[in-house]
């Protein structure tokens, strides 16, 4: 099934589900489906029903707040003459955390189907539905996303830190993580 067919199927079976196609710019041509958080678990069950029975990879990505500048050409009348003027419009895209799932079908030997879910922001709105009830291979990988990025997965059977120790307070894989100063030889002893 192509991605567009899967998207149509999801929109048909789950009313109110927002599924967007995210186009991939690289030659790999692996486009992905962006699903909204509220219907993430239902969408996962539908996909499981389409014989996508193997979730291979769960990745968390940290997108910082970024400013996108687009050049817009518009026709305006200046001194009575119609001219084409280029304007630069800057839009601020707020930061968010994202989780990417790579799904394959072991029975039909197909794949990958790439799924994405995004959080609201990077600070307090960081909850996402856990897909571990659908694919158990996500169990340890979602724990790792929680440990290193701080994404909270609702419905995960055992959400605790997996790689760092219990009691570690930072989320080290985030782009704005600053390691403690007493690591380097230059700053040792100065706290």
């Amino acid at each position, binding site marked *: 099934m192509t991605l567009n067919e899967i998207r149509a199927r999801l929109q048909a079976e789950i009313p109110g589900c927002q599924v967007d196609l995210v186009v991939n710019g690289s*030659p790999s041509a*692996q486009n992905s489906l962006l699903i909204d958080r509220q219907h993430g678990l239902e969408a996962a069950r539908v996909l499981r029903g389409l014989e996508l029975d193997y*979730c291979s990879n769960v*990745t968390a990505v940290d997108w910082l707040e970024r400013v996108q500048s687009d050049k817009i050409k518009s026709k305006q009348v200046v001194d009575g003459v119609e001219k084409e003027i280029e304007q630069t419009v800057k839009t601020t895209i707020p930061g968010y955390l994202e989780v990417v799932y790579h799904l394959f079908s*072991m029975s039909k030997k197909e794949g990958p189907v790439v799924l994405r879910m995004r959080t609201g922001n990077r600070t307090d709105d960081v909850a996402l539905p856990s897909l571990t009830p659908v694919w*158990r*291979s996500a169990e340890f990988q979602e724990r790792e996303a929680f440990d290193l990025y701080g994404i909270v997965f609702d419905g995960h059977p055992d959400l605790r*830190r997996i790689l760092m120790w219990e009691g570690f307070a930072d989320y080290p894989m985030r782009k704005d993580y600053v390691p403690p100063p007493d690591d380097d030889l230059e700053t040792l002893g100065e706290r």
Partner: protein
Amino acid sequence: MTQVAPPEAEQNNLMELSMGPQHPSTHGVFRMDVRLDGERVMRLKPVFGYLHRNHEKIAETASYLAAIPYTDRLDYLCSMTNNWGYALAVEKLAGLSVPERAEYIRVIVAELTRLQNHAGMVGFLLQDMGASGTPLMYAFRERERVLDLFESLSGARMMCNYMRFGGVRVDCSAEWLGQAAQLVAGFGGFLDEFEQLLTGNEILMARTQRVGVLSSELAINAGVTGPGLRASGVNYDVRKVDQYGIYDRFPFRVPLGEHGDVFDRYMMRVLEMRETLKILEEALRDIPSGPIMDPKARLRGLRPKVGEAYGRIESPKGELGFYLISDGTPNPYRYRVRPPSLINLTVLEDMCLGHNIADVVVILGSIDIVMGEVDR
């Protein structure tokens, strides 16, 4: 046999034992918190992170080329296949092609890696069972021969740093190919000798048959890949499914197990070694002459277009995948390793429940994990 773990109230009478991180049989720094009723395992929780070396974070500050030596150190027994997985992902991301001679060389070194990995796994499994050192000595004797080949080809025994984006780093000589052919010709005899000592051995059979059974439904759901999945009867080998490289040219079979126990997983490795020898014979015979790098590929300063790619190979441990997100700069924005050893450990508790603690060691040995990959 599997049992459901008892509820928390009953667990107060159980003995809590922490196996690891320093333990002679945990295959590296791996810890298991086991709750025992006498000798029977009631609950098992693995603890990771003792070798978490921040490979993904370091790769974000290193360029694409500089991350290759770090991939050597992921599954440190199989550096060539790690390199190939990463090179495949970058070639997908940047749209590079690989010339034919380089593809043949990649297949040859990857299958040699599979040989020495599976031989080592059998050796370590037997050592966990108590055959203290002898099968391991035989396996390492063969492994040293393969490492000699790698050293003369790439300069290093273990951390080869050999693959590049669009080909391989150094060409192999005809003499090297002759030595490899000699090794392959003699390996069948070593396998016969090995099997004569091990496969019909009644201690091995008593300790491994019907121990650590993994059903095929659970294996697929939990994302188990590699010989562990095929031992449970699921026909899924990334070499056959994706047909990456030139694997479609080699007629090799995929052995499948019936019971999914430790004995099947052991036999998987032995049978796969025999299939690997077939691939190697053909590849060494048919390798063409030609360039070893894509002429359009630049060795340094690779700046792929904005986008992402997921590339995967069948490493000796399972499906090794690399997921890369590029933002147009020389460093990857997100670099993710899909570690087969970590995902294969998802089912460790299910396989160990109800067994004795001595079986836990054997089951762990049959999954074949390397901590460099689990923790990255």
